[in-house]
């Protein structure tokens, strides 16, 4: 009996069934012993940066001041001490000498120290400049990806959608009025390169003329003081206006 069964070819259907059972067993074994690779979502670290308030040229942080500013420094004020550079080797200070001996001999070493310190400070400023330029470039690239194209990082609104959203929200607070429970208006707003509202098109009204007009007023009010989109480009985006805390159906 056993010999008959083992020696018999079960046919394509049987082989398929046999294969299915084998695969199922293997799958169950893998699943049971948790041999599946763990799934990790590739998370990109998110950095929230307000591009509007970034200190682009700040002498205190190491950037060289413009030439004109250097010349108008007040003479009565002593020059600021160079910033400490922890990573650079510092020349040891000369040993203190008696006042009599120091009268004629300390002049040259003092000049050397000052020059040395100035050179060190200059190097430190250059290093800081380079580092900051790299960071700015990184941020500019990130802003250009998530915000609007061609953002430089030093004009209002490299994250222009958030900026416009904020302006519209402020304006809507001023004019919000509604007579139905959960109105919402979906509208496309186009901001011209000069910062004025080039087009306001309602894609879907709320059915409440009071709310529709309120949204129109909000867009008009916000449009009076908009900063131009970055990169001299036109900005176009769809917005949904609705009362706070109301979830539209």
């Amino acid at each position, binding site marked *: 009996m056993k010999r008959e069964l083992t020696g018999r070819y079960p046919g394509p259907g049987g082989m398929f069934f046999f294969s299915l059972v084998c695969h199922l067993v293997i799958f169950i074994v893998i699943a049971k012993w948790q041999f599946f690779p763990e*799934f990790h979502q590739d998370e990109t670290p998110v950095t929230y940066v307000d591009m509007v308030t970034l200190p682009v040229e700040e002498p205190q942080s190491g950037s060289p001041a413009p030439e004109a500013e250097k010349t108008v420094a007040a003479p009565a004020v002593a020059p600021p001490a160079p910033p400490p550079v922890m990573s650079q080797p510092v020349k040891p200070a000369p040993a203190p000498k008696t006042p009599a001996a120091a009268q004629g001999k300390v002049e040259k070493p003092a000049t050397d120290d000052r020059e040395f310190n100035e050179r060190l400070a200059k190097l430190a400023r250059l290093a800081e400049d380079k580092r900051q330029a790299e960071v700015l470039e990184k941020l500019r690239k990130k802003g250009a990806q998530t915000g609007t194209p061609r953002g430089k990082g030093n004009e209002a609104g490299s994250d222009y959608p958030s900026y416009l*959203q904020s302006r*519209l929200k402020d304006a809507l607070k001023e004019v919000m009025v*509604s007579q139905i429970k959960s109105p919402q208006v979906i509208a496309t707003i186009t901001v011209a390169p000069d910062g004025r509202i080039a087009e306001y098109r309602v894609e879907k009204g709320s059915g*409440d003329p009071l709310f529709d007009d309120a949204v129109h*007023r909000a867009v008009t009010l916000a449009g009076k003081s908009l900063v131009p989109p970055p990169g001299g480009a036109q900005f176009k985006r769809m*917005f*949904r206006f609705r*009362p706070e*805390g109301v979830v539209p159906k």
Partner: protein
Amino acid sequence: MRIILFLMLLLVPQLGLAAEGYIDVTAPVTRKLKLFIAPTTPLSGQGAPEVAQELSELFGFDLGLAGPFEVTTAAPPGAGADLVLKSAYAVQGDSVTLECRLVDQVLNRELTAKRYTGGPKELRRMGHAFSDEVLRAVTGEKGPFTGKIAYVTRISGNKEIFIMDYDGRNPQRVTNNGSINLKPDFAPSGKEIIYTSYKKGNPDLYRRELFTGVEARISSRNGLNAMGAFAPDGGKIALVMTKDGNSEIYLINKEGKELARLTNSHAIDVSPAWSPDGSRIAFVSDRLGKPQLFLMDAEGGNLRRLTTNGAYNVTPRWSPKGDRIVYARQEGGGFQIYAINPDGSQDTQLTSTGSNEHPRFSPDGRFIVFSSTRDGAEAIYLMRADGSTQTRISPNKVQNSHPTWSGNW
């Protein structure tokens, strides 16, 4: 399971992208439209200060009551007002011309402009007409301010029917028979009323054309012929009769011919009220012991109980949009006004001072007019549909009750 989770995680970003089509802009709804009513000026020649004053007060009252506006007459235009109402008039002999404009200050555009001409007695009507127009321009729905209110008054000792402007001005007598006249109801056209009168001894139902004064007794069956309610098409009337020994609701046509008996129970069935589409009728019945509101089809079928709270609920009236039914509930020693959805949800109390009865919606559903004893004698008041801004409009200190608000007049 893990595979399914893996596939779902793959799908999530796609779904997120689909929902991320627009940017949300939200703000709290805490504000009204600031409406500046500019001083009324003469169009030409010498002005009539009393005309300017009357119009300014009229616009302030109408639009302040309306709800969406924060009305001011003091601030100069441009000082934060969203809308400006400008009006000018000219009086030439027996003719008055009124020009009104509504300007949106923010959008810098004129929303509506109208010119009215008529006699000096028509001045208030012209003003109300523009108030209606302002609401139409701003909310999309015409205001109810040109409508009239019919009511029962004891001004001459007995109970007579009068009509007046919605704000209590310009009362006019409709009946003068020295008897008891009750429960007026306007036809949808606003040009006719029906009411019950005892002037021939029996409480019969009468129909009267307001402009011609032509009157007809349309139901004089034995017993009570009362609480008539015009159907929305104006061709049928639901009323209460006791001709068969018990108080039941019947359907008759405008000429009084009986069309159908809608209720048939041992209990008292009264106060029929039509839904705005004419498909259903709300009424009061004590078939379960105490007076409660019930709904039925316009043919009398499909009966169901509406109110379950309160031991004594009466006088239902449907809102013009059909979304609410207002009624009076007995509480303590008097009545209070409530509103409920036709499915029985959101049963909300609207009044709490004095005894308040006979609520009726304005033709746009924005207001409810009712009678109240809060200041002593029963008087007519109106409030917004949410119960706010309760305002007395009775033109005198005598007893006034059973108000009903007409549509176009």
